[in-house]
């Protein structure tokens, strides 16, 4: 109970406040409350959680990986997840640096290299985790059922390719910018497949502490996908009103990823 209360007070309450701040700004940007903040202050409120949360998640994932003995399938999965989260952290840190030096509209940048590499490694980490759990022997399900769930989620992801990517492909933008705006949602759709499998695994563990880890991880991935899709539209189609909502979604995504690692860390601590 103490651990749960500490998680709520130190983690979930600050995260909810940060998310609520930007959801409120997205819904009522002219509200008096937001007029009391300078644009610089709002930018810092949005930037800091986006740097701190993936950084925390990367460190916690590394600590979790090191707690698993060599040869344990989860060790490599969590290790790769840590590397992927570290890539996202470096990407956000780069954006923060550009903002701190007064360059507010830098896209593409070196940060995108970190984001793309981070996403690729994160997908590999998630696949390794799913593979490890499927082979653990604890999940009493036939392999073909796992493959079936993966196939259905792949078809669902593929069905989103045209409606999501076509408007971005048709928009006028410099080639590198357009390429990145296509790469991000494509990687996200790829990430959807292990995320769906993780959700399915979490459902089988419902009611237990393991389920909390996987539910938070899958939610983190799903919100990251949502954030990248919104960013693609925002960047290429100039939907300026989506700005605060994108901040809220990314903070929630990184918060859920960090929460999953927090829970896993607490779970394996003997």
């Amino acid at each position, binding site marked *: 109970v103490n651990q749960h209360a500490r998680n709520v007070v130190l983690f979930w309450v600050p995260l909810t406040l940060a998310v609520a701040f930007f959801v409120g700004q997205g819904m009522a940007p002219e509200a008096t409350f937001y007029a009391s903040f300078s644009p610089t202050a709002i930018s810092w409120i949005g930037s800091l959680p986006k740097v701190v949360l993936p950084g925390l998640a990367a460190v916690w994932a590394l600590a979790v990986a090191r707690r698993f003995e060599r040869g344990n399938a989860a060790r490599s999965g969590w290790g790769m997840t840590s590397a992927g989260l570290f890539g996202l952290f470096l990407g956000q840190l780069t954006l923060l640096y550009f903002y701190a030096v007064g360059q507010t509209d830098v896209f593409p940048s070196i940060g995108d290299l970190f984001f793309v590499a981070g996403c690729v490694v994160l997908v590999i980490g998630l696949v390794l985790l799913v593979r490890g759990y499927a082979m653990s022997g604890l999940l009493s399900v036939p392999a073909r059922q796992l493959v079936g769930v993966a196939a259905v989620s792949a078809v669902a992801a593929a069905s989103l390719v045209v409606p999501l990517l076509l408007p971005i492909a048709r928009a006028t933008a410099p080639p590198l910018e357009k390429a990145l705006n296509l790469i991000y949602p494509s990687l996200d759709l790829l990430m959807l497949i292990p995320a769906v499998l993780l959700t399915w695994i979490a459902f089988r563990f419902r009611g237990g502490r393991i389920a909390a880890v996987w539910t938070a991880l899958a939610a983190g991935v799903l919100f990251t996908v949502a954030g990248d899709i919104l960013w693609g539209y925002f960047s290429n189609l100039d939907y300026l009103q989506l700005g605060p909502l994108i901040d809220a979604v990314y903070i929630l995504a990184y918060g859920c990823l960090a929460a999953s690692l927090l829970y896993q860390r607490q779970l*394996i601590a003997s």
Partner: protein
Amino acid sequence: MATAGRRAIVPMIERYHRGYTPHPDHFPRQDGGIRVENSTRAARRQAAAVFAAIETVLTPYVGRNMASTAAAAQCRRLGLEGASFAEGDIAKLVDRLGLGLKVFLGEARTAEVLATIRNAIAALPEAP
């Protein structure tokens, strides 16, 4: 005689606390002592009681649904059937559950969970 017995039991207690799987005939009592069974007659436990003990320990970690199906699934894999299990078969079952749990909980936490399961099962009455 008593000294020789102590020499045999104390290392076994130490190995047990390090996650060592005791011989099927050497099961820990709930009070922490070791009961050495007569190896010519392996004790048996009611299968339903063994499942219930495993489910109780595993539920906080894997949820009630997975806790109730995991032990039954491992029994099928090991070919364990009947209304009661021999202690050797129970040891195999618990070890098998540990192999799966390690991927989710890590070695240290799994050793704790398995020790709790073994204690819970050792506290069960023997099947007639």
